[in-house]
Protein backbone atom coordinates (compact mmCIF):
# COMPACT_ATOMS: atom_id res chain seq x y z
CA UNK A 1 0.00 0.00 0.00
CA UNK A 2 2.88 2.36 0.79
CA UNK A 3 4.28 1.79 -2.71
CA UNK A 4 0.83 2.50 -4.11
CA UNK A 5 0.65 5.78 -2.16
CA UNK A 6 4.09 6.88 -3.41
CA UNK A 7 3.01 5.96 -6.95
CA UNK A 8 -0.18 8.05 -6.64
CA UNK A 9 1.68 11.05 -5.23
CA UNK A 10 4.42 10.73 -7.83
CA UNK A 11 1.95 10.48 -10.71
CA UNK A 12 0.23 13.60 -9.35
CA UNK A 13 3.55 15.36 -8.83
CA UNK A 14 2.58 18.43 -10.86
CA UNK A 15 -0.55 18.98 -8.82
CA UNK A 16 1.35 18.25 -5.61
CA UNK A 17 4.43 20.35 -6.40
CA UNK A 18 3.25 23.53 -4.70
CA UNK A 19 2.22 21.66 -1.58
CA UNK A 20 5.60 19.92 -1.39
CA UNK A 21 7.32 23.31 -1.80
CA UNK A 22 5.15 24.84 0.94
CA UNK A 23 6.10 22.00 3.28
CA UNK A 24 9.76 22.33 2.26
CA UNK A 25 9.97 26.08 2.95
CA UNK A 26 8.00 25.82 6.18
CA UNK A 27 10.29 23.06 7.32
CA UNK A 28 13.39 25.17 6.62
CA UNK A 29 12.01 28.21 8.47
CA UNK A 30 10.87 25.96 11.31
CA UNK A 31 14.27 24.28 11.40
CA UNK A 32 16.05 27.66 11.56
CA UNK A 33 13.74 28.95 14.30
CA UNK A 34 13.96 25.79 16.34
CA UNK A 35 17.76 25.70 15.97
CA UNK A 36 17.96 29.19 17.48
CA UNK A 37 15.41 28.29 20.18
CA UNK A 38 17.16 25.01 21.06
CA UNK A 39 20.52 26.78 21.12
CA UNK A 40 19.16 29.52 23.38
CA UNK A 41 17.46 26.97 25.61
CA UNK A 42 20.61 24.86 25.91
CA UNK A 43 22.59 27.98 26.78
CA UNK A 44 19.90 29.06 29.24
CA UNK A 45 20.06 25.72 31.05
CA UNK A 46 23.81 26.01 31.63
CA UNK A 47 24.92 27.65 34.88
CA UNK A 48 25.51 31.39 34.61
CA UNK A 49 28.20 31.12 37.26
CA UNK A 50 27.21 34.24 39.18
CA UNK A 51 24.13 35.75 40.76
CA UNK A 52 23.07 39.04 39.08
CA UNK A 53 20.44 39.95 41.69
CA UNK A 54 21.45 42.87 43.95
CA UNK A 55 24.58 43.62 41.92
CA UNK A 56 25.23 47.24 41.09
CA UNK A 57 27.57 47.76 38.19
CA UNK A 58 29.33 51.10 38.60
CA UNK A 59 31.40 52.58 35.82
CA UNK A 60 33.95 55.17 36.97
CA UNK A 61 35.24 58.08 34.94
CA UNK A 62 38.44 59.47 36.39
CA UNK A 63 38.58 62.51 34.10
CA UNK A 64 41.81 64.49 34.53
CA UNK A 65 43.01 62.83 37.77
CA UNK A 66 46.70 61.87 37.44
CA UNK A 67 47.33 58.13 37.14
CA UNK A 68 49.18 57.78 40.45
CA UNK A 69 46.34 59.50 42.28
CA UNK A 70 43.78 57.29 40.54
CA UNK A 71 45.48 54.23 42.07
CA UNK A 72 45.36 55.68 45.56
CA UNK A 73 41.84 57.05 45.28
CA UNK A 74 40.52 53.81 43.82
CA UNK A 75 41.86 51.90 46.80
CA UNK A 76 40.30 54.40 49.20
CA UNK A 77 37.02 54.23 47.33
CA UNK A 78 36.84 50.45 47.65
CA UNK A 79 37.58 50.69 51.38
CA UNK A 80 35.01 53.45 51.85
CA UNK A 81 32.29 51.50 50.08
CA UNK A 82 33.08 48.40 52.17
CA UNK A 83 32.16 50.37 55.26
CA UNK A 84 28.68 51.29 54.07
CA UNK A 85 26.01 49.22 55.86
CA UNK A 86 23.89 48.79 52.72
CA UNK A 87 26.70 47.07 50.82
CA UNK A 88 27.54 43.41 51.39
CA UNK A 89 30.62 43.11 49.17
CA UNK A 90 32.67 45.33 46.86
CA UNK A 91 35.09 44.54 44.05
CA UNK A 92 37.09 46.55 41.53
CA UNK A 93 37.63 44.71 38.28
CA UNK A 94 37.55 44.97 34.53
CA UNK A 95 34.17 45.97 33.12
CA UNK A 96 33.63 42.99 30.85
CA UNK A 97 30.73 41.58 32.83
CA UNK A 98 27.64 39.91 31.47
CA UNK A 99 25.07 42.29 29.91
CA UNK A 100 27.67 45.10 29.75
CA UNK A 101 28.36 44.70 26.06
CA UNK A 102 32.08 44.66 26.79
CA UNK A 103 34.48 41.87 26.02
CA UNK A 104 38.19 41.46 26.53
CA UNK A 105 39.54 38.39 24.78
CA UNK A 106 42.98 36.89 25.13
CA UNK A 107 44.46 33.84 23.40
CA UNK A 108 45.59 30.99 25.66
CA UNK A 109 47.58 27.95 24.54
CA UNK A 110 48.65 24.60 25.89
CA UNK A 111 50.68 22.52 23.48
CA UNK A 112 48.71 22.42 20.26
CA UNK A 113 45.53 23.58 21.93
CA UNK A 114 44.64 27.23 21.63
CA UNK A 115 41.55 29.26 22.32
CA UNK A 116 40.43 32.86 22.62
CA UNK A 117 39.12 33.41 26.14
CA UNK A 118 37.45 36.23 28.01
CA UNK A 119 39.88 37.77 30.47
CA UNK A 120 38.75 39.37 33.74
CA UNK A 121 41.25 41.30 35.83
CA UNK A 122 40.47 41.81 39.51
CA UNK A 123 42.17 44.71 41.20
CA UNK A 124 40.55 45.09 44.58
CA UNK A 125 37.86 43.97 46.98
CA UNK A 126 36.30 40.51 47.08
CA UNK A 127 35.19 39.61 43.57
CA UNK A 128 34.30 35.99 44.44
CA UNK A 129 31.86 36.97 47.19
CA UNK A 130 30.50 39.93 45.25
CA UNK A 131 29.61 37.82 42.21
CA UNK A 132 28.84 34.71 44.28
CA UNK A 133 31.22 32.52 42.29
CA UNK A 134 31.44 28.79 42.94
CA UNK A 135 34.95 27.32 43.14
CA UNK A 136 34.80 23.66 42.09
CA UNK A 137 38.48 22.79 42.09
CA UNK A 138 41.61 24.23 43.69
CA UNK A 139 41.26 27.58 45.39
CA UNK A 140 40.32 31.21 44.85
CA UNK A 141 42.91 34.02 44.90
CA UNK A 142 44.43 34.93 48.20
CA UNK A 143 46.58 37.82 49.45
CA UNK A 144 49.95 37.82 47.75
CA UNK A 145 48.74 36.22 44.54
CA UNK A 146 48.82 39.60 42.82
CA UNK A 147 52.59 39.72 43.37
CA UNK A 148 53.35 36.07 42.57
CA UNK A 149 55.68 35.47 39.65
CA UNK A 150 53.67 32.30 38.92
CA UNK A 151 50.93 34.52 37.46
CA UNK A 152 48.08 32.65 39.17
CA UNK A 153 44.83 32.34 37.28
CA UNK A 154 41.37 30.94 37.92
CA UNK A 155 39.59 29.42 34.96
CA UNK A 156 36.02 28.38 34.26
CA UNK A 157 35.14 24.72 34.02
CA UNK A 158 34.64 24.67 30.22
CA UNK A 159 38.16 26.06 29.79
CA UNK A 160 39.50 23.41 32.14
CA UNK A 161 37.68 20.78 30.09
CA UNK A 162 39.07 22.18 26.85
CA UNK A 163 42.71 22.26 27.94
CA UNK A 164 42.90 19.50 30.54
CA UNK A 165 39.92 17.22 29.92
CA UNK A 166 39.11 15.22 33.01
CA UNK A 167 42.53 15.77 34.59
CA UNK A 168 42.95 18.12 37.51
CA UNK A 169 43.90 21.63 36.34
CA UNK A 170 45.32 22.97 39.59
CA UNK A 171 49.03 23.70 39.30
CA UNK A 172 49.08 23.30 35.52
CA UNK A 173 50.34 25.95 33.13
CA UNK A 174 48.70 27.90 30.30
CA UNK A 175 50.47 30.39 28.08
CA UNK A 176 49.47 33.64 26.47
CA UNK A 177 52.24 34.66 24.11
CA UNK A 178 55.43 34.50 26.17
CA UNK A 179 53.65 34.89 29.46
CA UNK A 180 52.99 31.73 31.47
CA UNK A 181 50.08 31.43 33.89
CA UNK A 182 49.53 28.87 36.63
CA UNK A 183 46.02 27.59 37.20
CA UNK A 184 45.22 27.74 40.91
CA UNK A 185 41.49 27.09 40.76
CA UNK A 186 38.46 26.33 38.67
CA UNK A 187 35.08 28.06 39.01
CA UNK A 188 31.83 26.56 37.75
CA UNK A 189 31.23 29.32 35.16
CA UNK A 190 31.31 33.05 34.54
CA UNK A 191 29.31 33.66 31.41
CA UNK A 192 30.02 37.14 30.16
CA UNK A 193 27.80 36.76 27.08
CA UNK A 194 24.68 36.21 29.17
CA UNK A 195 22.53 33.14 29.57
CA UNK A 196 21.10 33.00 26.03
CA UNK A 197 24.40 33.12 24.15
CA UNK A 198 27.22 30.65 23.89
CA UNK A 199 30.25 31.47 25.91
CA UNK A 200 33.97 31.44 25.08
CA UNK A 201 34.90 30.73 28.70
CA UNK A 202 36.65 33.02 31.14
CA UNK A 203 39.87 33.20 33.03
CA UNK A 204 40.51 35.54 35.93
CA UNK A 205 43.67 37.02 37.29
CA UNK A 206 44.53 39.53 39.97
CA UNK A 207 46.70 42.59 39.85
CA UNK A 208 47.63 45.12 42.44
CA UNK A 209 46.65 48.78 42.23
CA UNK A 210 50.26 49.45 43.10
CA UNK A 211 51.47 47.72 39.97
CA UNK A 212 52.18 50.66 37.68
CA UNK A 213 52.72 48.41 34.69
CA UNK A 214 48.95 47.86 34.53
CA UNK A 215 46.17 50.37 34.08
CA UNK A 216 43.58 50.91 36.76
CA UNK A 217 40.33 49.05 36.22
CA UNK A 218 37.31 51.35 36.20
CA UNK A 219 34.37 49.17 37.18
CA UNK A 220 33.05 48.66 40.67
CA UNK A 221 30.86 45.68 41.46
CA UNK A 222 28.68 46.16 44.52
CA UNK A 223 26.63 43.38 46.10
CA UNK A 224 23.90 45.21 47.97
CA UNK A 225 22.27 43.82 51.07
CA UNK A 226 18.78 42.32 50.64
CA UNK A 227 16.04 44.97 50.71
CA UNK A 228 18.32 47.82 49.58
CA UNK A 229 16.60 49.82 46.86
CA UNK A 230 17.77 52.25 44.21
CA UNK A 231 16.81 55.04 46.64
CA UNK A 232 20.19 54.56 48.29
CA UNK A 233 22.01 55.53 45.09
CA UNK A 234 22.17 59.22 46.01
CA UNK A 235 23.72 58.44 49.39
CA UNK A 236 26.17 56.07 47.73
CA UNK A 237 27.30 58.67 45.22
CA UNK A 238 27.67 61.24 47.99
CA UNK A 239 29.84 58.91 50.07
CA UNK A 240 31.91 57.98 47.02
CA UNK A 241 32.25 61.65 46.09
CA UNK A 242 33.75 62.37 49.49
CA UNK A 243 36.72 60.18 48.49
CA UNK A 244 36.77 60.47 44.72
CA UNK A 245 36.20 64.15 44.21
CA UNK A 246 35.43 65.11 40.64
CA UNK A 247 34.93 61.53 39.44
CA UNK A 248 31.75 60.48 37.76
CA UNK A 249 30.14 57.23 38.89
CA UNK A 250 27.53 55.77 36.54
CA UNK A 251 25.38 53.21 38.37
CA UNK A 252 23.54 50.42 36.57
CA UNK A 253 21.57 47.64 38.23
CA UNK A 254 22.58 44.26 36.94
CA UNK A 255 19.07 42.83 37.17
CA UNK A 256 17.86 45.66 34.93
CA UNK A 257 20.81 45.14 32.59
CA UNK A 258 19.82 41.50 32.47
CA UNK A 259 16.17 42.35 31.76
CA UNK A 260 17.10 44.56 28.80
CA UNK A 261 19.55 41.92 27.55
CA UNK A 262 16.78 39.31 27.65
CA UNK A 263 14.43 41.68 25.83
CA UNK A 264 17.01 42.41 23.14
CA UNK A 265 17.68 38.73 22.60
CA UNK A 266 14.18 37.38 22.95
CA UNK A 267 12.41 39.98 20.76
CA UNK A 268 14.00 38.82 17.47
CA UNK A 269 13.36 35.24 18.50
CA UNK A 270 9.73 36.05 19.14
CA UNK A 271 9.38 37.86 15.79
CA UNK A 272 11.02 34.91 14.05
CA UNK A 273 8.70 32.50 15.85
CA UNK A 274 5.61 34.55 14.90
CA UNK A 275 6.65 34.61 11.22
CA UNK A 276 7.24 30.88 11.47
CA UNK A 277 3.82 30.36 13.06
CA UNK A 278 2.16 32.29 10.20
CA UNK A 279 4.00 30.18 7.65
CA UNK A 280 2.95 27.02 9.43
CA UNK A 281 -0.63 28.27 9.57
CA UNK A 282 -0.42 28.92 5.86
CA UNK A 283 0.77 25.38 5.22
CA UNK A 284 -1.93 24.02 7.51
CA UNK A 285 -4.63 25.88 5.57
CA UNK A 286 -3.01 24.74 2.32
CA UNK A 287 -3.07 21.10 3.37
CA UNK A 288 -6.64 21.48 4.51
CA UNK A 289 -7.67 23.10 1.24
CA UNK A 290 -5.80 20.61 -0.94
CA UNK A 291 -7.38 17.71 0.87
CA UNK A 292 -10.92 19.11 0.65
CA UNK A 293 -10.36 19.77 -3.02
CA UNK A 294 -8.87 16.31 -3.58
CA UNK A 295 -11.75 14.61 -1.83
CA UNK A 296 -14.36 16.46 -3.84
CA UNK A 297 -12.44 15.88 -7.06
CA UNK A 298 -11.89 12.22 -6.29
CA UNK A 299 -15.39 11.45 -5.10
CA UNK A 300 -15.93 8.73 -7.70
CA UNK A 301 -12.49 7.24 -7.00
CA UNK A 302 -13.48 6.90 -3.36
CA UNK A 303 -16.69 5.14 -4.40
CA UNK A 304 -14.74 2.88 -6.73
CA UNK A 305 -12.25 1.89 -4.05
CA UNK A 306 -15.09 1.11 -1.68
CA UNK A 307 -16.71 -1.03 -4.40
CA UNK A 308 -13.43 -2.87 -4.96
CA UNK A 309 -13.20 -3.83 -1.32
CA UNK A 310 -11.72 -0.89 0.61
CA UNK A 311 -13.17 -0.34 4.06
CA UNK A 312 -14.00 3.16 5.29
CA UNK A 313 -10.92 2.91 7.49
CA UNK A 314 -8.72 2.07 4.53
CA UNK A 315 -10.01 5.14 2.67
CA UNK A 316 -9.24 7.24 5.74
CA UNK A 317 -5.73 5.78 5.92
CA UNK A 318 -5.18 6.29 2.21
CA UNK A 319 -5.90 10.03 2.33
CA UNK A 320 -3.89 10.45 5.49
CA UNK A 321 -1.12 8.34 3.95
CA UNK A 322 -1.04 10.43 0.78
CA UNK A 323 -0.54 13.65 2.71
CA UNK A 324 2.13 11.96 4.84
CA UNK A 325 3.92 10.92 1.66
CA UNK A 326 3.72 14.52 0.43
CA UNK A 327 5.12 15.69 3.75
CA UNK A 328 7.88 13.09 3.54
CA UNK A 329 8.93 14.34 0.10
CA UNK A 330 9.01 17.93 1.37
CA UNK A 331 10.92 16.85 4.46
CA UNK A 332 13.48 14.79 2.53
CA UNK A 333 14.20 17.83 0.38
CA UNK A 334 14.23 20.09 3.44
CA UNK A 335 16.47 17.76 5.43
CA UNK A 336 18.98 17.72 2.59
CA UNK A 337 19.35 21.49 2.89
CA UNK A 338 19.16 21.42 6.68
CA UNK A 339 22.05 18.96 6.82
CA UNK A 340 24.12 21.44 4.81
CA UNK A 341 23.59 23.86 7.73
CA UNK A 342 25.21 21.29 9.99
CA UNK A 343 28.06 20.47 7.63
CA UNK A 344 28.85 24.10 6.89
CA UNK A 345 28.05 25.23 10.45
CA UNK A 346 26.08 28.18 9.03
CA UNK A 347 24.75 29.41 12.36
CA UNK A 348 27.79 28.64 14.52
CA UNK A 349 26.02 26.26 16.87
CA UNK A 350 26.89 22.88 18.30
CA UNK A 351 26.04 20.01 15.89
CA UNK A 352 23.70 18.49 18.46
CA UNK A 353 21.56 21.66 18.33
CA UNK A 354 20.97 21.09 14.60
CA UNK A 355 20.15 17.43 15.16
CA UNK A 356 17.63 18.29 17.88
CA UNK A 357 16.13 21.00 15.67
CA UNK A 358 15.97 18.58 12.73
CA UNK A 359 14.16 15.97 14.83
CA UNK A 360 11.75 18.46 16.40
CA UNK A 361 10.97 20.12 13.04
CA UNK A 362 10.26 16.78 11.37
CA UNK A 363 7.98 15.67 14.20
CA UNK A 364 6.19 19.06 14.18
CA UNK A 365 5.57 18.97 10.41
CA UNK A 366 4.26 15.40 10.61
CA UNK A 367 2.00 16.33 13.54
CA UNK A 368 0.73 19.38 11.68
CA UNK A 369 -0.01 17.30 8.61
CA UNK A 370 -1.81 14.63 10.63
CA UNK A 371 -3.91 17.21 12.48
CA UNK A 372 -4.85 18.99 9.23
CA UNK A 373 -5.56 15.78 7.34
CA UNK A 374 -7.62 14.21 10.10
CA UNK A 375 -11.00 15.80 9.39
CA UNK A 376 -10.92 15.73 5.55
CA UNK A 377 -9.74 12.11 5.61
CA UNK A 378 -12.59 11.19 7.95
CA UNK A 379 -14.98 12.93 5.60
CA UNK A 380 -13.59 10.89 2.68
CA UNK A 381 -14.07 7.71 4.70
CA UNK A 382 -17.68 8.61 5.40
CA UNK A 383 -18.64 9.02 1.74
CA UNK A 384 -21.38 6.60 0.74
CA UNK A 385 -19.99 4.37 -2.04
CA UNK A 386 -23.23 4.09 -4.01
CA UNK A 387 -23.59 7.90 -4.12
CA UNK A 388 -19.92 8.44 -4.92
CA UNK A 389 -20.07 6.06 -7.87
CA UNK A 390 -22.74 8.18 -9.49
CA UNK A 391 -20.58 11.33 -9.27
CA UNK A 392 -18.70 12.26 -12.41
Amino acid at each position, binding site marked *: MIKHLFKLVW*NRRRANFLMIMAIFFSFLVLFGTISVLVNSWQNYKKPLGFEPERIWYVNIQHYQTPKDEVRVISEQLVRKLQTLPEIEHVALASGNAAYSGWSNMMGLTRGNLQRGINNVTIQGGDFKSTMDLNVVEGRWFQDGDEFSNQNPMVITQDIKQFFFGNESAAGKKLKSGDKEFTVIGVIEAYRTNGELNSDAGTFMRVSSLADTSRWVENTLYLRMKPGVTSGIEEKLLKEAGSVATGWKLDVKYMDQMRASYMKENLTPLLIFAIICAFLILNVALGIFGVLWYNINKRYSEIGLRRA*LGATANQIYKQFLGEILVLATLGLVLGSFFAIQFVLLDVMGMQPEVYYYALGISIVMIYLLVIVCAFQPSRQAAAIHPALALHEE
Partner: protein
Amino acid sequence: MITLSDIEKVYQTKTIETVALQRVNLAVPKGEFVSIMGPSGCGKSTLLNIMGLLDVPTSGVVTIDGQPIKSYKDKELAHIRNEKIGFVFQSYHLVNDLSVLDNVELPLLYRSGVSGSERTKLAKDALEKVGLSARTKHFPNQLSGGQRQRVAIARALIGNPAIILADEPTGNLDSVMGEEVMNILLDLNRNDGTTIVMVTHDENMAHKTERLVRFFDGQQVSDSKVFDLQTV
Protein backbone atom coordinates in the same frame (compact mmCIF):
# COMPACT_ATOMS: atom_id res chain seq x y z
CA MET B 1 -25.68 -17.40 -6.08
CA ILE B 2 -27.54 -14.15 -5.34
CA THR B 3 -31.05 -14.08 -3.98
CA LEU B 4 -33.06 -10.95 -3.29
CA SER B 5 -36.05 -11.52 -1.05
CA ASP B 6 -38.74 -8.86 -0.63
CA ILE B 7 -36.31 -6.08 -1.26
CA GLU B 8 -37.58 -2.57 -0.81
CA LYS B 9 -35.63 0.64 -1.06
CA VAL B 10 -37.10 3.97 -0.03
CA TYR B 11 -35.20 7.24 -0.18
CA GLN B 12 -36.56 9.65 2.34
CA THR B 13 -35.96 13.37 2.64
CA LYS B 14 -37.75 15.78 5.00
CA THR B 15 -40.54 16.36 2.53
CA ILE B 16 -40.44 13.58 -0.05
CA GLU B 17 -40.43 9.83 0.16
CA THR B 18 -39.25 8.12 -3.02
CA VAL B 19 -39.77 4.42 -3.48
CA ALA B 20 -36.91 3.11 -5.63
CA LEU B 21 -37.62 -0.61 -5.33
CA GLN B 22 -40.76 -2.43 -4.26
CA ARG B 23 -40.97 -6.06 -3.18
CA VAL B 24 -38.25 -7.31 -5.49
CA ASN B 25 -37.73 -11.06 -5.46
CA LEU B 26 -34.97 -12.26 -7.71
CA ALA B 27 -32.72 -15.29 -7.65
CA VAL B 28 -29.67 -15.44 -9.87
CA PRO B 29 -28.19 -18.94 -9.90
CA LYS B 30 -24.49 -19.63 -10.25
CA GLY B 31 -23.15 -19.23 -13.78
CA GLU B 32 -26.17 -17.33 -15.12
CA PHE B 33 -25.91 -14.22 -17.27
CA VAL B 34 -28.87 -12.00 -16.46
CA SER B 35 -29.64 -8.67 -17.99
CA ILE B 36 -31.84 -6.09 -16.34
CA MET B 37 -33.68 -3.56 -18.42
CA GLY B 38 -36.04 -0.74 -17.78
CA PRO B 39 -36.44 2.98 -18.32
CA SER B 40 -34.22 5.50 -16.50
CA GLY B 41 -35.13 5.92 -12.86
CA CYS B 42 -36.86 2.55 -12.59
CA GLY B 43 -34.42 1.36 -9.91
CA LYS B 44 -31.97 -0.75 -11.97
CA SER B 45 -28.85 0.86 -10.56
CA THR B 46 -30.27 0.83 -7.04
CA LEU B 47 -30.87 -2.88 -7.47
CA LEU B 48 -27.30 -3.40 -8.65
CA ASN B 49 -25.95 -1.37 -5.72
CA ILE B 50 -27.92 -3.52 -3.30
CA MET B 51 -26.74 -6.70 -4.99
CA GLY B 52 -23.16 -5.37 -4.83
CA LEU B 53 -23.51 -4.53 -1.13
CA LEU B 54 -22.81 -0.87 -1.87
CA ASP B 55 -26.22 0.08 -0.51
CA VAL B 56 -28.53 -1.46 2.03
CA PRO B 57 -32.20 -2.17 1.35
CA THR B 58 -34.85 -0.49 3.50
CA SER B 59 -36.32 -3.96 4.00
CA GLY B 60 -35.76 -7.46 2.67
CA VAL B 61 -32.74 -9.73 2.59
CA VAL B 62 -29.86 -10.18 0.17
CA THR B 63 -28.35 -13.66 0.18
CA ILE B 64 -25.01 -14.36 -1.44
CA ASP B 65 -23.79 -17.96 -1.70
CA GLY B 66 -26.49 -18.97 0.74
CA GLN B 67 -25.31 -16.41 3.28
CA PRO B 68 -27.94 -13.80 4.26
CA ILE B 69 -26.22 -10.42 4.38
CA LYS B 70 -27.81 -8.66 7.29
CA SER B 71 -26.30 -6.38 9.94
CA TYR B 72 -22.85 -6.91 8.50
CA LYS B 73 -20.16 -4.48 9.51
CA ASP B 74 -18.37 -2.29 6.98
CA LYS B 75 -15.26 -4.47 7.13
CA GLU B 76 -17.23 -7.68 6.42
CA LEU B 77 -19.14 -6.10 3.54
CA ALA B 78 -15.90 -4.79 2.04
CA HIS B 79 -14.40 -8.27 2.33
CA ILE B 80 -17.35 -9.88 0.48
CA ARG B 81 -17.22 -7.22 -2.25
CA ASN B 82 -13.52 -7.79 -2.66
CA GLU B 83 -13.62 -11.58 -2.72
CA LYS B 84 -16.88 -12.35 -4.48
CA ILE B 85 -17.99 -9.40 -6.59
CA GLY B 86 -16.48 -7.61 -9.56
CA PHE B 87 -17.91 -4.31 -10.78
CA VAL B 88 -18.03 -2.85 -14.29
CA PHE B 89 -19.44 0.65 -14.70
CA GLN B 90 -20.77 2.57 -17.65
CA SER B 91 -18.22 5.35 -17.15
CA TYR B 92 -15.38 2.87 -16.45
CA HIS B 93 -14.32 4.55 -13.18
CA LEU B 94 -10.61 4.19 -13.83
CA VAL B 95 -8.16 6.18 -11.73
CA ASN B 96 -6.59 8.56 -14.22
CA ASP B 97 -3.38 8.95 -12.23
CA LEU B 98 -2.63 5.25 -12.27
CA SER B 99 -1.35 3.22 -15.20
CA VAL B 100 -3.50 0.50 -16.76
CA LEU B 101 -1.59 -2.14 -14.81
CA ASP B 102 -2.00 -0.28 -11.52
CA ASN B 103 -5.71 0.23 -12.16
CA VAL B 104 -6.18 -3.48 -12.73
CA GLU B 105 -4.21 -4.33 -9.58
CA LEU B 106 -6.44 -2.15 -7.39
CA PRO B 107 -8.81 -4.85 -6.00
CA LEU B 108 -5.87 -6.97 -4.89
CA LEU B 109 -4.48 -4.04 -2.89
CA TYR B 110 -7.37 -4.61 -0.52
CA ARG B 111 -6.86 -8.36 -0.31
CA SER B 112 -4.43 -9.62 2.29
CA GLY B 113 -1.72 -12.12 1.45
CA VAL B 114 -1.18 -11.10 -2.17
CA SER B 115 2.39 -10.01 -2.83
CA GLY B 116 3.31 -7.19 -5.19
CA SER B 117 4.81 -9.53 -7.77
CA GLU B 118 1.75 -11.78 -7.60
CA ARG B 119 -0.51 -8.76 -8.11
CA THR B 120 1.45 -7.71 -11.16
CA LYS B 121 1.35 -11.22 -12.63
CA LEU B 122 -2.41 -11.53 -12.10
CA ALA B 123 -2.99 -8.05 -13.54
CA LYS B 124 -0.99 -8.94 -16.64
CA ASP B 125 -2.98 -12.19 -17.01
CA ALA B 126 -6.26 -10.27 -16.67
CA LEU B 127 -5.16 -7.72 -19.26
CA GLU B 128 -4.17 -10.51 -21.62
CA LYS B 129 -7.64 -11.98 -21.24
CA VAL B 130 -9.20 -8.72 -22.45
CA GLY B 131 -6.58 -8.26 -25.17
CA LEU B 132 -4.74 -5.31 -23.63
CA SER B 133 -1.41 -6.81 -22.63
CA ALA B 134 0.39 -4.26 -24.82
CA ARG B 135 -1.10 -1.33 -22.91
CA THR B 136 0.04 -2.02 -19.35
CA LYS B 137 2.03 1.20 -18.99
CA HIS B 138 -0.53 3.45 -20.64
CA PHE B 139 -2.72 5.76 -18.65
CA PRO B 140 -6.53 5.74 -19.01
CA ASN B 141 -6.60 9.04 -20.93
CA GLN B 142 -4.39 7.44 -23.59
CA LEU B 143 -6.98 4.76 -24.33
CA SER B 144 -10.20 4.64 -26.35
CA GLY B 145 -13.54 4.12 -24.62
CA GLY B 146 -13.62 0.44 -25.56
CA GLN B 147 -10.10 -0.08 -24.25
CA ARG B 148 -10.97 1.67 -21.01
CA GLN B 149 -13.95 -0.58 -20.53
CA ARG B 150 -11.78 -3.62 -21.20
CA VAL B 151 -9.37 -2.36 -18.52
CA ALA B 152 -12.36 -2.06 -16.18
CA ILE B 153 -13.36 -5.64 -16.99
CA ALA B 154 -9.80 -6.83 -16.35
CA ARG B 155 -9.97 -5.05 -13.01
CA ALA B 156 -13.30 -6.72 -12.26
CA LEU B 157 -12.01 -10.21 -13.01
CA ILE B 158 -8.50 -10.00 -11.48
CA GLY B 159 -9.76 -11.13 -8.10
CA ASN B 160 -11.51 -14.10 -9.71
CA PRO B 161 -14.95 -13.11 -8.38
CA ALA B 162 -17.92 -15.43 -8.65
CA ILE B 163 -20.20 -12.54 -9.65
CA ILE B 164 -19.73 -9.61 -11.98
CA LEU B 165 -22.16 -6.73 -11.71
CA ALA B 166 -22.07 -4.58 -14.81
CA ASP B 167 -23.94 -1.29 -14.89
CA GLU B 168 -24.53 -0.40 -18.55
CA PRO B 169 -21.05 -1.58 -19.61
CA THR B 170 -21.64 -0.74 -23.25
CA GLY B 171 -23.63 2.45 -22.62
CA ASN B 172 -20.79 4.80 -23.53
CA LEU B 173 -19.43 2.79 -26.44
CA ASP B 174 -20.18 2.66 -30.12
CA SER B 175 -21.66 -0.54 -31.51
CA VAL B 176 -18.33 -2.11 -32.53
CA MET B 177 -16.67 -1.47 -29.21
CA GLY B 178 -19.87 -2.42 -27.42
CA GLU B 179 -19.81 -5.77 -29.23
CA GLU B 180 -16.18 -6.31 -28.21
CA VAL B 181 -16.96 -5.67 -24.57
CA MET B 182 -20.07 -7.82 -24.67
CA ASN B 183 -18.13 -10.69 -26.20
CA ILE B 184 -15.60 -10.52 -23.37
CA LEU B 185 -18.42 -10.72 -20.84
CA LEU B 186 -20.01 -13.63 -22.69
CA ASP B 187 -16.66 -15.45 -22.79
CA LEU B 188 -16.23 -14.95 -19.07
CA ASN B 189 -19.67 -16.34 -18.45
CA ARG B 190 -19.33 -19.31 -20.77
CA ASN B 191 -15.73 -20.28 -20.20
CA ASP B 192 -15.15 -19.33 -16.56
CA GLY B 193 -18.70 -19.82 -15.32
CA THR B 194 -18.82 -16.29 -13.88
CA THR B 195 -22.27 -15.18 -12.83
CA ILE B 196 -23.03 -11.85 -14.48
CA VAL B 197 -25.80 -9.40 -13.78
CA MET B 198 -25.86 -6.64 -16.36
CA VAL B 199 -27.99 -3.53 -16.41
CA THR B 200 -28.51 -2.32 -19.98
CA HIS B 201 -30.67 -0.14 -22.16
CA ASP B 202 -29.66 -2.05 -25.27
CA GLU B 203 -32.16 -4.72 -26.34
CA ASN B 204 -29.57 -6.37 -28.61
CA MET B 205 -27.09 -6.80 -25.80
CA ALA B 206 -29.80 -8.00 -23.45
CA HIS B 207 -30.86 -10.64 -25.93
CA LYS B 208 -27.39 -12.12 -25.91
CA THR B 209 -27.78 -13.05 -22.27
CA GLU B 210 -29.63 -16.02 -20.83
CA ARG B 211 -32.28 -14.18 -18.94
CA LEU B 212 -33.91 -10.81 -19.11
CA VAL B 213 -35.58 -9.13 -16.16
CA ARG B 214 -37.54 -5.95 -16.78
CA PHE B 215 -38.24 -3.23 -14.26
CA PHE B 216 -40.70 -0.39 -14.24
CA ASP B 217 -41.18 2.13 -11.44
CA GLY B 218 -39.17 0.07 -9.00
CA GLN B 219 -41.11 -3.09 -9.68
CA GLN B 220 -40.06 -6.22 -11.45
CA VAL B 221 -42.50 -6.51 -14.36
CA SER B 222 -41.11 -9.48 -16.28
CA ASP B 223 -38.56 -12.24 -15.99
CA SER B 224 -37.93 -14.45 -19.02
CA LYS B 225 -35.35 -16.75 -20.55
CA VAL B 226 -33.63 -15.47 -23.67
CA PHE B 227 -33.32 -18.26 -26.18
CA ASP B 228 -31.37 -16.14 -28.68
CA LEU B 229 -28.25 -16.96 -26.68
CA GLN B 230 -28.24 -20.47 -28.00
CA THR B 231 -28.05 -19.20 -31.55
CA VAL B 232 -25.16 -16.72 -30.94
